[in-house]
């Protein structure tokens, strides 16, 4: 059963990739869909077995890397956390696989697309079933790689290629930290096995570690390095710009990878490593601040954007911020709960948006839509459901999970928790506002599309709508159904040892026992309704208001509209100093190549520096001597100082 849950997508992917020509498009679609559906069914069985009946177990397949005490097997670990992720991944993936049959109907590379999707699913399954750091890294890089391939799926588009490379490189920056974190853990614990490390973690609390010449708290260093990986993967503020560009990929990809599964891997990682994070209050605080900031920043940008996919992408980033700070305040169970409900409603929103884009002949700008509700009523209804769940209106799934997170943040009583709570409240308001802004602008009012596009507007075929309907059911019911298990009274028996929450940190328990006043618990719902109301006011009643605010608060609006200038900041912080350095050292450069290509964050910085460095190859002996002496002296000095 365990094998059936993990390996069928790999199998399907291989068949679609290597025999795609033989079995045809339809065959490739069938075999990949069959693969993930089998996985999904097996996951249900495992969920029942592991989460409900407590049959937690690990299957070791075979040795992977073994060198001295460094032992990393290929193993499948099944505990509650894993099976919950299995359910989310395989179900959303099944929906997206089926949806893609309709969405990609006109594409000439269907087998390749389906093969990528399935291979991605496999990598994700390896990630969630990992029982050691190295296999986690395998899945981690694997999903990153598939994300790269899928963003760049339309390989003839320069923008898609740029976005794909940017995603890979930014994620690699995170992986750099992640890898160092693994080395630090191994240095500390002499093992990369989760169970061994987790058992030893309490004994390590407060221990010092010599890192880069400083003596610092060992667990904090490990956690923060590992968290760097999560920052990149889950698009937390600082390493998030790739996620927006990733919208260059086909919409089903955005739904599966950049909303429901891969980007949540960072949250999953922090939850999986809860036994480490629990013993490092500093790391937890950092996680909280990062999460809360991300939630707010993303939502604030979303209210100014016009690209339907980018609005939803910012919304994803914002919700990831919620999950992250939930982890930071030790409400790991609430974080995973939100991860699950979000997986359903966000995939629904993306697939719904895909249906809109499909209907509008690939138009993504909501300013060029309008009045669509009569033309594509089913899609409209589905997007309403998704938005209601996202905004956290009572009885919809987001209500249960998001409120729990905010209550947990409040229940900490700490200043960091309060920071998260209040930013979370503001974000909840903004979330409702931008969701209904999207709905009102795109579906109501006068149609602003051109005549030609309007003629072709049509409701999507059933093969696209049915998966959406299934997700919609999840978006409505998942919260109410799973509440008891995830964060309600059944939570201890449900999670067992999958998550570690120290009694002193158990914010969910505190929230249940009256640590949160009535007003604080109701406030999220109030602001969500207020958000909808204001969106109604702005975009249905006084439609001049948005313009008035955009002009009246021009600096703020410009700042938000330009994504907080993060990409420009990278340019200024990383590229420019290197430019100056380059000019100082090697004046001979002309920079024509780099000027032609334009700066792109880190990629451009390294590229630029490379070009400068290449001047060393000019053949001037003094250049060689100069670089050599400086470099060697600096490094040798470092080594001796740092030991």
């Amino acid at each position, binding site marked *: 059963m365990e094998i059936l849950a993990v390996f069928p997508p790999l199998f399907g992917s291989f068949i679609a990739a290597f025999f795609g020509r033989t079995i045809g498009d339809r065959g490739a679609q069938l075999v990949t869909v069959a693969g993930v559906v089998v996985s999904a069914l097996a996951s249900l069985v495992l969920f029942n077995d592991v989460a409900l009946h407590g049959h937690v177990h690990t299957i070791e397949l075979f*040795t*992977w*890397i*073994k*060198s*001295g*005490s*460094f032992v990393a097997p290929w193993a499948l670990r099944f505990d509650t956390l894993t099976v919950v992720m299995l359910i989310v991944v395989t179900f959303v993936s099944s929906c997206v696989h089926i949806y893609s049959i309709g969405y990609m109907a006109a594409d000439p590379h269907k087998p390749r697309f389906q093969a990528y999707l399935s291979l991605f699913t496999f990598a994700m399954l390896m990630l969630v079933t990992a029982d050691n750091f*190295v296999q986690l*890294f*395998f899945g981690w*890089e*694997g999903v990153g*790689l598939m994300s*790269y391939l899928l963003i*760049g799926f339309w*390989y*003839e588009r*320069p923008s898609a*290629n740029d976005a*794909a*490379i940017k995603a*890979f*490189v930014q994620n*690699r920056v995170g992986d*750099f930290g992640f*890898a*160092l974190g693994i*080395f*630090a853990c*191994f*240095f500390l614990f*002499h093992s990369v096995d989760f169970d061994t490390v987790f058992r030893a973690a309490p004994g390590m609390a407060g221990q010092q570690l010599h*890192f*880069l*010449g400083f003596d610092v708290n060992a667990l904090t260093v490990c956690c923060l390095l590992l968290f760097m990986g999560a920052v990149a993967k889950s698009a937390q503020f600082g390493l998030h710009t790739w996620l927006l560009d990733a919208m260059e990929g086909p919409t089903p990809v955005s739904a599966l990878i950049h909303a429901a599964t891969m980007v949540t891997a960072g949250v999953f990682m922090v939850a999986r490593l809860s036994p480490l994070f629990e013993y490092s209050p500093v790391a937890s605080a950092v996680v909280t601040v990062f999460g809360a900031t991300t939630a707010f920043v993303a939502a604030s940008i979303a209210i100014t954007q016009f690209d339907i996919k980018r609005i939803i992408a910012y919304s994803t980033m914002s919700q990831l911020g919620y999950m992250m700070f939930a982890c930071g305040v030790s409400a790991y169970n609430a974080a995973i709960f939100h991860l699950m409900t979000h997986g359903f409603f966000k995939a629904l929103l993306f697939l719904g948006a895909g249906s809109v884009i499909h209907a509008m002949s690939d138009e993504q700008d909501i300013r060029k839509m309008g009045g669509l509700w009569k033309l594509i009523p089913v899609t409209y209804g589905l997007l309403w459901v998704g938005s209601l769940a996202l905004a956290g209106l009572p009885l919809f799934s987001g209500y249960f999970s998001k409120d729990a997170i905010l209550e947990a943040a409040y229940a900490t009583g700490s200043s960091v928790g309060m920071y998260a709570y209040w930013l979370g409240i503001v974000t909840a308001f903004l979330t409702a506002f931008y969701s209904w802004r999207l709905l009102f602008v795109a579906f109501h009012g006068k149609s602003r599309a051109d005549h030609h596009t309007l003629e072709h507007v049509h409701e999507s075929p059933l093969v696209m709508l049915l998966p959406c309907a299934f997700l919609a059911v999840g978006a409505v019911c998942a919260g109410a159904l799973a509440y008891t298990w995830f964060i309600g009274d059944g939570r201890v028996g449900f999670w067992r040892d999958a998550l570690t929450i120290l009694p002193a940190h158990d914010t969910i328990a505190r929230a249940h026992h009256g640590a949160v006043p009535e007003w604080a618990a109701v406030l999220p719902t109030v602001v969500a309704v207020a958000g909808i109301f204001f969106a109604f006011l702005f975009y249905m009643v006084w439609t001049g208001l948005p313009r008035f605010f955009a002009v009246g608060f021009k600096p703020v609006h410009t700042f938000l509209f330009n994504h907080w200038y993060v990409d420009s900041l990278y340019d200024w912080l990383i590229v420019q100093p290197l430019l100056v350095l380059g000019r100082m050292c090697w004046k001979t450069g002309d920079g024509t*190549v780099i000027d032609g*290509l334009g700066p792109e964050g*880190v*990629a451009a910085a*390294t*590229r630029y*520096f*490379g*070009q*400068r*460095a*290449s001047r*060393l190859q000019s053949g001037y002996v003094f250049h*060689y001597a100069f*670089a*050599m002496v400086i*470099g*060697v002296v600096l*490094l*040798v000095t*470092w*080594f001796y100082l*740092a*030991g």
Partner: protein
Amino acid sequence: MASLPVLSLTVFLPLLGAVLIMLIPGHGQPDGGARSARKLALGTSLLVFAVSLTVWLGFDPSLPGYQFEETVEWISGLNSSYHLGVDGISLFFMLLTTFTTPIAILIGWNRNDARTRELMAAFLVFESASAGMFLALDFLVFFLFYEAVLLPAFVIIGVWGGQRRTWSAITFFLYTMFGSVFMLIALLVFFFQFGVTDIPVLARVGHGLGRETQLWLWLALLASFVVKIPLWPVHTWLPEAYVEAPTGASVLLAGVLLKIGGYIFLRFSIPMLPVATEILAPLIYALAVVALIYLSFVVLMLTLALEDLKKWVAYAVLAHMGFGYIGMFTMTTQGLQGAIFVLISYGLIATALFCCVGVLEERASSREISRFSGLVGSMPKFALVLMVFMLASLGVPGTSGFVGEFLVLVGAYQASSWLALFSASIIVLGCVYFLWMYRLVVFGKAVRADCRSFADLSGREMAIMVPLMAVILWMGIYPDSFLHDTAASVATLIHNYQSTFADAGGAIVAAR
């Protein structure tokens, strides 16, 4: 089977093949005997590979010492004998040599090289000498083979090299001769000090040398191969030499010749001169890290300037070379095993990448990055194959590149967190230029008409790529087949190294 001298067979069969090739009558046939020469060379190298595989099959991983030993009295006056043997360290270097030679021969199958017969013979002599070098257990025998490798290498660069081949060959030759003097001096010092040239004996007694002597000997050994491997900053001859050489020659030079340095470190410097190793390790770290970062930038520049792909590959391979050296000087189990793994893995990856360039060159008679675009449309198999090799170079888990790199970094972290920080920068740096190159060559629109009509990989080319891919994935998914065999020898190496310091009461690097 034990009675059969398999190691000697591995060493001398190629030589026999080379002699036979030169006996092929060249004048009677229209192609100057090129076709028969290639067939004979391929047959010989495959046979040698089969022989070397029996060594692997018969290898007992539980024994830390040398196996399949062969000893014949040779020069009794020098106390020197013809002594061959294989242990966990040399096993895979030998296999790498015998595995890449048939590939080197096969990749240029349809090429119209001048003097094909001589080229094939040079390949086989090269194989013979390299195998001999990795298997020799006597310093004098090693020295002879070591010098013997230079002959075919020199000839290959000088005769079949590019426009600046004379310059490259002479540089290479001068540096090498210069270096050889140092190795000879080291050999003589060892001989006069201990009266033997047997490597296992020297490894047992070498640490008794004084600190100063060790340092000088160590530096002499380094000087003997620093250009050849080549270590930054004396590497500039190499890309020049590679660029217009036949693909097969680049494969052998990059796949095998570049590994000599690592092997000498492992076989001589570390076991025989532990005190000097301990002192000078930071020097190697520094050189390797600088090479890593500096060369990565150079490759980036080459990518942006849409330069020659072969030069690009040469630099990309060089940029990763430093990794092996970093690993071995950490003197940790993971570092050393990782180092051996990295050297072998990059030998294969370099081979594969050069073959990919060869494939393109055969179709377009050009190697400029600017010449190609959108190849995925016309050559999907090629795109897949290159993708796998690229991922292996990037160290994506599941490929051989990851296992080696990760283990080296684990070792590096235990030596110093700074070292790990710098070395790990390759995780970010490496992917930028690789992805960019791939994007330029394989993705995008196929601008030129012929890029849309290139033939995909032929059967012969698949016969090269598929085994390479299979081994790279095998090493990535089940590396235990390889790590298992190096474990015992590495453990002994570390044990001996540490006992040196334990005897001296010095600082001990704890084994992990």
